[in-house]
């Protein structure tokens, strides 16, 4: 057995131990072990550094896998692999960061989702900016559907007493045009063209 083979055997043993400790389902372990050497190693570094929980690891693995597939299909100018995705600046910043491991793990998933769903991210950012620009008082919330998964927009008013309620209703009425625009954007209005 050559030096490289011994190293790879050691790597696979570490992956096996991590999977056993975290009760990683066999299907995911099998997918992990058939990856290229660099990719297997990069995923293990991710799992160990951020002390990922099993669910977080499975989510990250799936997101990375789908990012690679999407970018390869889009004729990426360079080869896209798990290793190259995890080497990107925004991911390295999280891996090399100094915050708590659970906090960085959550940030990793959010960052991967932003890469995996780029147009959704831009649309959500645009809507958040539109809502902020309305300058609504603290007792009024504009609640968008989770992940923009429906066309439903809710306005929540939280008031304490009649005077407060009247003030908040007036604020909503004054923002009527802007709120209508937000509802139109959620409903696929043309003006969101550039963003998605």
């Amino acid at each position, binding site marked *: 057995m050559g030096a490289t083979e011994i190293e790879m055997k050691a790597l696979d043993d570490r992956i096996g131990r991590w999977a056993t400790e975290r009760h990683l389902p066999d299907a995911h372990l099998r997918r992990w072990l058939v990856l290229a050497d660099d990719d297997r190693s990069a995923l293990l570094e991710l799992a160990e550094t951020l002390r990922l929980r099993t669910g977080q690891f499975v989510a990250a693995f799936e997101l990375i896998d789908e990012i690679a597939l999407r970018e390869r*299909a889009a004729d990426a100018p360079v080869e896209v692999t798990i290793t190259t995705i995890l080497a990107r600046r925004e991911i390295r910043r999280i891996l090399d960061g100094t915050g708590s491991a659970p906090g960085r793990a959550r940030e990793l998933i959010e960052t991967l989702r932003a890469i995996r769903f780029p*147009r959704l991210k831009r649309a959500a950012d645009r809507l958040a900016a539109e809502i902020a620009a309305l300058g609504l008082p603290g007792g009024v919330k504009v609640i968008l559907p989770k*992940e*923009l*998964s*429906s*066309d439903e927009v809710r306005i929540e008013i939280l008031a304490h007493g009649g005077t407060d309620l009247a003030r908040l209703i007036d604020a909503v009425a004054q923002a009527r045009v802007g709120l209508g625009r937000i509802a139109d954007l959620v*409903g*696929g209005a043309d003006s969101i063209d550039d963003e998605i």
Partner: protein
Amino acid sequence: MKFELDAINIEEGVRTSALARRVIGAAPPEVAVSYVADGRQAARPIEGAADAFGAGKRRMVIMRRRAPFLMACPAGSSEFACCGYLVLTLASNCPMDCGYCFLQEYLADNPGFQVYANYADAFDELERLRRTAPARQLRVGTGELADSLAFDSLTGISRDLVEYFAGRDDLTLELKTKTDEIENLLAIDPKGRTLVSWTLSPERVYRSTEHRTAAPAARLEAARRVLAAGYRVAFHLDPIIGYAGAERDYLDLIEQLFAAIAPEQIAFVSMGGLRMTPALRAAARRRFPDDPMLVGEEVLGPDGRYRTFTPLRLKLYKALGDRIRQSNAKMQTYLCMESASVHQQVFGEAASRPTVLGARLAGD
């Protein structure tokens, strides 16, 4: 187009049926024919097969259908604005293999390609329905759990169907297909009662995802030929997949459609976005792990299905709907498996009741 079969299993009880005789007579000699006591068992997944669903597509099971043939469209639901479609299940599964197909989940437990030898019993069910709904225009299709025309060169079922519907002014038959297998149709006069519809997708979706189907251009050519033979034609832009560049590709597709078929000759166009339950998505990703069309920007919606996130999906619908209406403001256009509120946002008007829309699509 020609599809391949590994085997034909014929249930003993229908050994002498007209359908079994036709299929045996037309099947290639290298396809093994065997007889089984119960077709339901033969349609079960092959144990240990790496892709039992895919293997089922290559195993035709000719059998008696035990359940009713006629039912309301299984996609219908009170949460959606529906089109009043009625479904005749004359076969189950399909020799084509689209990556997004819901049959991957729906037929996971009985993937054998079943064709029902007692299909003429469906005509009795239709007669009973006509008696309970006199003067109502009904649109009845066979393309829900199977492609209406795939293997028609073997089964010849379309001939009996078209002839039955040709004699009933209150019924419209919709044959829904992704094939160009129309030769049987060209020999019969439908007397205006049969509509042939094609699912259309841009070339990129066809190449990536719609395995063993006819190319989009071949589907349009087939549509042109059946139109000339006296059939009505319709088209389904379904599923619309929201990949980068989709709007341009789908608009180009509509241009190709209108270049092939004049808009005023098209009975209707439906639209529907890609939708997948989590189980379907998992099955599709397992079977087609390298298909980028299955990893678009779909999110889990309130109805428990993954769909393209709403602003993008509705933007696509609006762009395509506007283009269709520019070509012919009177063309019937509807959305499949979308809510009444989405219908309102896209078309700027409330959705019609299913019976009303159904009658309009039937040509009333």
